[in-house]
């Protein structure tokens, strides 16, 4: 069977205006070359984190996964559908949902349930089916009691959960999270990360989590690192984090607990490989 996401030698050049989400490397003639030949496959059900410095092409790559951007060269297949075929666009957008950074700027309606209904309404489903999906999606993020609330009465974390429910209501196989926690307080961050983890573990939803936080990346089964439009590392967190010096050169700091573990090993303490969380450290030491 083909992998769920297949990216082959993907290149993308922004036309000569500045893309809204900034970043990227300026090429000649004012053009911005954002992706310089990315190859990647992601299987159904994987939990993948994508990290890299600002302007390395993370968001640009993410936007190729549901046909918001189309390749300048190369190709992207989602569940066997090539995104550059115009008649695949709507199917691809149903299969891959997206959650963006700013929760305020992705909520379209004046109540929670109306907003969650937006995706299924766009799909032209009958009213009963929409109602059913909205209830399921709100239950999955634990916001059923808030269905009638106006979005401005919710916390940042709750708004982001509404955005996740909005993506879920289209019944996608995969959700791409583009720095979903960077504008949230610690409580909201925890709510959102717990929800992402649960959706992956219990509903089998493929997750691509773009993040600046290495601790969040440590949650994933697989970590991708991008630099200047190229994929430079790809592996389980424990393996990727071993290359601490290279990551630091990219401006990416190891999660504190991984950093401590590596320093202790350098001091000669016999710690096992793959300490990623405080719990791992406790287990190794006690």
């Amino acid at each position, binding site marked *: 069977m083909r992998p769920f996401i297949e990216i082959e030698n993907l290149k993308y050049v922004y036309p000569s205006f500045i893309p*809204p989400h900034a970043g990227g490397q300026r090429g000649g003639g004012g053009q911005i070359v954002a992706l310089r030949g990315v190859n990647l496959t992601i299987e159904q059900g994987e939990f993948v984190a994508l990290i890299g410095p600002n302007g390395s092409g993370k968001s640009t790559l993410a936007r190729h996964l549901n046909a918001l951007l189309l390749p300048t060269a190369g190709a992207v297949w989602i569940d066997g559908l090539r995104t550059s075929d115009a008649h695949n666009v709507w199917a691809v957008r149903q299969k891959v949902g*997206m959650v963006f950074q700013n929760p305020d700027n992705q909520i379209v*309606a004046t*109540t929670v349930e109306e907003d969650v209904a937006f995706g299924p309404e*766009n799909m032209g489903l009958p*009213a009963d089916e929409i109602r059913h999906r909205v209830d399921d999606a709100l239950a999955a993020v634990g916001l059923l009691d808030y269905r009638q609330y106006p979005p*401005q009465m919710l916390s940042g974390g709750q708004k982001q959960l509404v955005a996740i429910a909005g993506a879920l209501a289209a019944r996608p196989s995969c959700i791409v999270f583009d720095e979903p926690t960077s504008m949230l307080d610690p409580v909201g961050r925890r709510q959102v990360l717990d929800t992402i983890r649960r959706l992956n573990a219990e509903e089998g939803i493929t997750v691509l989590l773009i993040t600046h936080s290495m601790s969040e990346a440590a949650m994933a089964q697989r970590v991708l690192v991008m630099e200047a439009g190229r994929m430079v590392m790809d592996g389980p967190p424990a393996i990727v984090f071993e290359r601490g010096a290279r990551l630091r050169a990219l401006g990416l700091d190891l999660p504190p607990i991984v950093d401590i573990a590596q320093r202790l090993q350098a001091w000669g303490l016999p710690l096992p490989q793959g300490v990623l969380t405080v719990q791992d450290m406790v287990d190794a030491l006690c």
Partner: protein
Amino acid sequence: MSALPIGMYVPGNSILHRLDPRVKMGATLVLMMIPFAVHGLWGYVALSTFVVTAVLLSGVPLGALLRTLRTVFWIAFLMFFLYLFTTPGEPLLALGSIAITRQGLLAAVAQIYRLCLLVTVASLLTFTTSPIHLTHGLEAMLSPLERARLPVRELAMVLTIALRFVPTLQEEIDKIAKAQRARGADFRTGGPLRRARNLVPIFVPIFVSAFRRADELATAMDARGFRSALHRTRMRKLRLGSLDLLATLIVMGLVLTVIWLG
């Protein structure tokens, strides 16, 4: 967050809250026109009884209604004196060349009454109808115009999004104003021109951010599969119930009564 001056939705479950928005909007239109058909005392009594009953049924706090009425105070004030002094007729009181006439006094009172009625009826609609219902109702009532190629559904979508962002932008204005004040900006003193100029440092950042928001929202809508409104269906369908039928009959009854009373 500072409160909006007029017609903010007051959540509730009164009979008026439960009426179909189309019925409420239709009734509001009728009630806004009907005062112009009223001329005699009994017509006013019938109309007033109806509106006062509706206000009481709505459970809207009277303070909120009075605050709304206060917003038209100066217009009412001007209108009153305009009618009082310019209507010719049988003089009650003469001050040199200016005379207050019996007809003038009656006309002035009638105009104020009509204005207050208009404002009361309009705010009853917005007090008891949530923005979503309002847009749904508007969409439904304008839908015949789709045949004339008016993009009614798109307009409703635009309206919903505008309503959605009112509190967000309000919050942001507050935040920017505070930030500017912290750096010594002054929005309170000086003449109107000076004060208007001092608002520039608030509105420039607001515009910049509003455009950024619009851009991000458009991307998010694309990602959620938004295409032309023609492909869309709605979760919430408006359905007329027996209550709506009853309300329609009562309003029609009122219209006939008022016309009959003259």
